């Protein structure tokens, strides 16, 4: 059913009895033109854009759990395009533009809220690095502003500007950045893809990838073999394991990132703020909870839970930045496991195996990428060649040395 104020009113008077499932629960077909492994944001968006942009509707999305059980359903919802390296800047800007028109496109309110993203700096060298980044954005046509301490003080009440161990000297602001309701992205894309004929198969885990004569022919699943001409892997966090089913070894480690949410309070913070002298970033959800997080735990893990050091670092940093948050209580913490790539940037590419495509390595920053990732991956799958926008996200860049290392942290997954 199309969502509109009228359908809401109609249902209101009929006791909400007319609503139908947001997406179907069809039995798997024996064969599909294209299979997408992974019912997260990227997999669902890929399926949607395959159908919408390329008319490929004989598609199934295979999800081992429920739709949104992965990182799309457990991330801290920040979107932005404040990247330094051209290959990233243009891609994430495309994503931001897709976000800006998403809700009307998929007829689902994902609560895209461009409340602004502010990265604070605490030293001259940090300022210079942000200036380099901000200028790169501006020169690529992306909005960015460099604020001094006074501007930050005026813009975000509550920041400790005076008695801090690492005083805030200013910040890099992207006003068009903001937040999007995580679950709504998964559900919205699932519903929109379903309405274009895509089968969404939940609780269908891919256990093997069948390759014959160098060409993919389908996948083994917990619900039996499903054949396909093309298979796209979008199994964030499990990419290494899934790719290994096709004999590929990736420049990726799986790590956990934790997140936290506080009790709901009346509005106290109306933008996304990241701390530059510790690991902490925070925004306030529409429900009133502070949604915050910090750095990854740093060790390989597939368990969706973290350990204390990361928790304490986040809480300490949070109070250091916003001393008034000290008395607010957090009510839940959780974790998600992500692909940490060796240069901190993603991979959207073909693989040495015909018909097998790869979308991985999103680290802790792939939610914002969801629309563009799906859009580019769909293009790459449909045309068997990367689009200009994902031309930099090649698998062979580690061999050539054309790495995309935004932080300059080097080839160590847990440093990105």
């Amino acid at each position: 059913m199309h969502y509109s104020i009228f359908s809401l009113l109609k249902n209101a008077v009929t006791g909400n009895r007319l609503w139908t499932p947001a997406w179907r629960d069809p039995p798997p077909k024996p064969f599909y033109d294209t299979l997408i492994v992974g019912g997260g944001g990227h997999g669902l968006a890929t399926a949607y854009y395959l159908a919408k942009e390329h008319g490929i509707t004989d598609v199934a999305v295979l999800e081992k759990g429920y739709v949104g059980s992965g990182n799309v359903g457990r991330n801290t919802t920040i979107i932005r395009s404040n990247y330094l390296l051209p290959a990233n800047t243009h891609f994430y800007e495309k994503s931001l533009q897709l976000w800006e028109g998403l809700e009307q496109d998929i007829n689902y309110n994902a609560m895209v809220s461009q409340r602004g993203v502010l990265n604070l700096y605490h030293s001259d060298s940090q300022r210079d690095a942000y200036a380099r980044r901000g200028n790169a954005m501006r020169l690529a046509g992306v909005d960015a502003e460099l604020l001094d301490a006074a501007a930050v003080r005026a813009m975000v009440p509550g920041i400790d500007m005076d008695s801090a161990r690492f005083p805030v000297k200013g910040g890099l602001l992207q006003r068009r950045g903001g937040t999007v309701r995580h679950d709504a992205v998964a559900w919205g894309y699932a519903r929109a893809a379903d309405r274009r004929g895509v089968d969404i198969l939940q609780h269908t885990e891919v256990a093997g990838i069948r390759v014959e004569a160098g060409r993919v022919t389908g996948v083994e699943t917990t619900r039996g073999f499903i054949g396909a001409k093309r298979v796209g892997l979008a199994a964030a966090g499990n990419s290494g394991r899934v790719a290994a089913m096709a004999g590929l070894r990736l420049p990726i480690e799986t790590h956990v990132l934790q997140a936290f949410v506080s009790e709901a309070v009346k509005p106290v913070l109306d933008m996304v703020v990241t701390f530059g002298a510790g690991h902490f970033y925070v925004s306030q959800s529409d429900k009133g909870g502070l949604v915050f997080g910090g750095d990854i735990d740093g060790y390989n893990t597939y368990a969706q839970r973290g350990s204390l050091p990361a928790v304490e670092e986040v809480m300490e940093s949070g109070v250091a930045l916003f001393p008034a948050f000290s008395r607010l209580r957090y009510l839940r913490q959780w974790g998600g496991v992500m692909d940490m790539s060796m240069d901190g940037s993603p991979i959207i590419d073909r693989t040495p195996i015909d018909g097998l495509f790869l979308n991985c390595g999103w680290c802790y920053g792939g939610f914002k990428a969801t629309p563009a990732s799906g859009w580019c991956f769909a293009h790459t799958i449909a045309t068997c060649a990367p689009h200009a926008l994902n031309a930099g996200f090649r698998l062979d860049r580690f061999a050539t040395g054309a790495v995309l290392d935004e932080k300059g942290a080097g080839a160590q997954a847990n440093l990105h």
Partner: protein
Amino acid sequence: MNAPQGPVTPARENLASGAAAPTQPWRLKTGGQIDRTRTLSFSFDGKRFAGNPGDTLASALLANGVRLVARSFKYHRPRGILSAGAEEPNALVELHSGARREPNTRATQIELFEGLEARSQNRWPSLALDLGAVNGFFAPLIAAGFYYKTFMWPASFWEKLYEPLIRRAAGLGRAPDGPDPDRYERAHLHCDVLVVGGGAAGLMAALAAGRAGARVLLLEEDVAVGGRLLSEVEEVDGRPGAEWARQVESELATLPRVRILRRTTAFALLDGGVVTALERVADHLPQPPAHLPRQRYWKIVARRVVLAAGAIERPVVFGGNDRPGVMLAGAVRSYVNRFAVLPGARAVVFTAGDDGWRSVADLARAGARIEAVVDARREVPAAQAQLASQLDARLVVGGRVVGTQGGRHLVSVQIANAQGGEEGVGADLLAMAGGWNPSLHLSCHLGGRPRWDEAIHAFVPGDLPAGMGVAGAARGRFSTHTALAEGAREGVAAARDCGFASNGPAIPRAEDAPGDLAPLFHVPRGHGKAFVDFQHDVTDKDVALAHREGFRSVEHLKRYTTLGMATDQGKTANVTGLAVMANITGLGIPGTGTTTHRPPWTPVAIGAIAGPHRGRHFRPARRTPLHRWAAANGASFVEVGPWYRAEWYARPGEAGWRDSVDREALAVRAGVGVCDVSTLGKIEVVGPGAAALLDLVYGNMISTLAVGRVRYGVMLREDGFVMDDGTVARLAPDRFFVTTTTANAGKVMQHMEFCHQVLRPDLDVSLLSVTDAWAQVSIAGPRARDLVAAVIDPAPDISNGALPHMACIEVSVAGVPCRLYRLSFSGELAYELGVPGDYGEAAMQRIMARGAPLGVTPYGTEALGVLRIEKGHPAGGELNGQTTARDIGLGKMVSTKKDCIGRRLAERPALVDPARHVLVGLKPADGRSPIRAGAHLYEIGAQVVTSNGQGYVTSACHSPTLGMPIALALLDRGAERVGQRIRVLDPLRNGDMDAEVCSPVFVDPEGGRTRG
């Protein structure tokens, strides 16, 4: 009777009212565990009331007849007090005010203290008259997930209109006004056996393990141990349960290796047997005394954990089940028996089994009139039927409560009998007993999944995390006898696992009623809204809607309706919610499963975990031995990583920092300056294998360095990019002294240890950080040698011949052994003098005194930066992790004759691409416009698009020597472009200028001054 705004007034003679105290009309004359000798005054919504020590805010409010205490999240429904513990979803208040304000605080867990101030939340203009209540009428329009379906048109309206409205409406309490004034502590505990929960089971577990000799820690969330025993009229060992608990507590206190922490909540179980707990050290006081923290965050390492956290009673989902006056039956007993408060005068009890009958008996004994008992079972035991008739209470067997009436407070209950016939019964209290859910949360924090137990219609712990045992109600064993027995059993087992064998204590006599229970979760088709999640206003209709729209898995149900996502994490809602869903799908509860329990068990203050690491003490600070001296000499300090460094030394009459920095830099070029460089990383590499290790670590060859000589070295990462640079001094054939940048000191030390221990364990070499051993002073400028000569004790020849550039010797200063290195980052004749830390300050005084005739000038990091930029030395801006040695002009230093970290990957095509950017200098074309670091470079006239970018500015400053702004930049094919002009774009700061590309070495390119 119609619920008035203010306190409800009771009618019954055995209440304290009319007696001495005019207040607390609902306080029972006798009984309870409160201290009647003292009264405490407190206020709620500005109105003053009295209570007693031993009260919670909830019991004190009830004692005063205050039953409307909150408004609900979405529909702003009037809400009262549902429970008597951690599970409370309704009675959330704002405690304290100003910077100490604490929103969303559970009245059921706030210990009353003198002067307590509490306020209701989320209502306007007042609690009694809350306009937000109109939402109730729009309920059908704003059912679960409605916002996903609307607010999309026009697109721009979301941020501008809809969202701000939603945000204002959402949220419960208000955050504090200012920085938290209180202190917080962190502390660590180690024990053999950790017992979580001090009820019947926990006390026995602690006793058993403690007597066996194990190191035991017992955590009790409540102010007193005893658990349900404090709330039940029950005997243990022939004494009242509460008394028995106190007696066990006092025995435990005598056991030296047993420790009890009350007011302490275990909130998370982590990998490795770590449990984190929050102790409310001073929350029961108006304000923490100066020497005490408000709260203490405990990190507990336990070899064994006994979970004895008890159980939480669950409400029944029926129409109007959220009305103030509807209460959990167990909570009713807590108020009557523990707090000596009568929660109502005319009661209806709605029970699914035997347990509710305890409330019937206790209420009646306390003097309440039992209007009716509605027992959902098909038949009830004779004894209970008899009790009903004794109390001449209407007994409705096989009945249901289908609705309630009342404005802001319950006035009557709608009852349906087994045949479906309905009648209304006047009542101001409805006690509901739907069965109990074990508090198994901590058993799930490491991924454990609970198991459905048909016998008790509840989830019980499934496969347990390593080292955990569960006892009593937490395991779904609800009789006091089994709680005691299982507690003892688990205590003995846990102690045995830690090597303390014993047979365990005798099990005291106690009630062992089986406790019959019918599965009763939901009364469909009742009157009015039937709430599943009280705090998030999720009704049975919302669950049905989620099902209709395909959100049928528990996780989807939760996320779509927000069931169980409030501050109580669904303690009273989750199981009933999925029971309602299971009913619709017909999958049954086991088939439906449950959502994931995550920490914390109850919400924890962010600041409690931050502990003392806040404000100025967020991170420890490192100060050099010269810090005090610098401060005394006008230095202003800047944070550099963990360090505080002197930026510049302002002098009277200087307009701004630029004046100071220019003066300092010029003094170095013209005379002599001294700078504190103690923060540089310093590592002593010693042993026969030292040279070989350094050959591996550094790009250049170190083994060929002569004793008494120093070499500038560059270090690569294994991926071929530059990691760090620094100097290597050979003090003896087998002893090297290397320096690193301040920023990378830790990283480099760790990397060298990696190279030694992991890659070359065969090398006999030791690494030692000596950063803190030396106060390191740079002495630079044409007069540097004169100054050094004046400072050090006579003897060593430091003439250019004896101590040339890049040489080092041992010297002494006033008898103190020091080291003198001749090296320069300023491009001047320069030395670094290493003085043992204790003598740093004295040496600096000596340097200043002896240097006075030479006009010695202390300079800070800013001038240091200016000098190195003028000299084209790469530093932070250039060592950004994205540059190769060649990029920053150090290409020749990487030897191709030997293996070294990073050598091979540095050969990758993209790293040796001749088109790569390299380090150049920039001068403003107009000779005066400042160039800013972070600006990007473009061909003049080229279209300004990313693909045309030619590089960027890495460092910039005003050069007092050249009298103009200068900069270092990484420019594509830069070497070939010296002399050309380039466009410098800095859109962030509206910068657009031309600059001339030049050599990065602005001063003395031949290096004569350095070597002179």
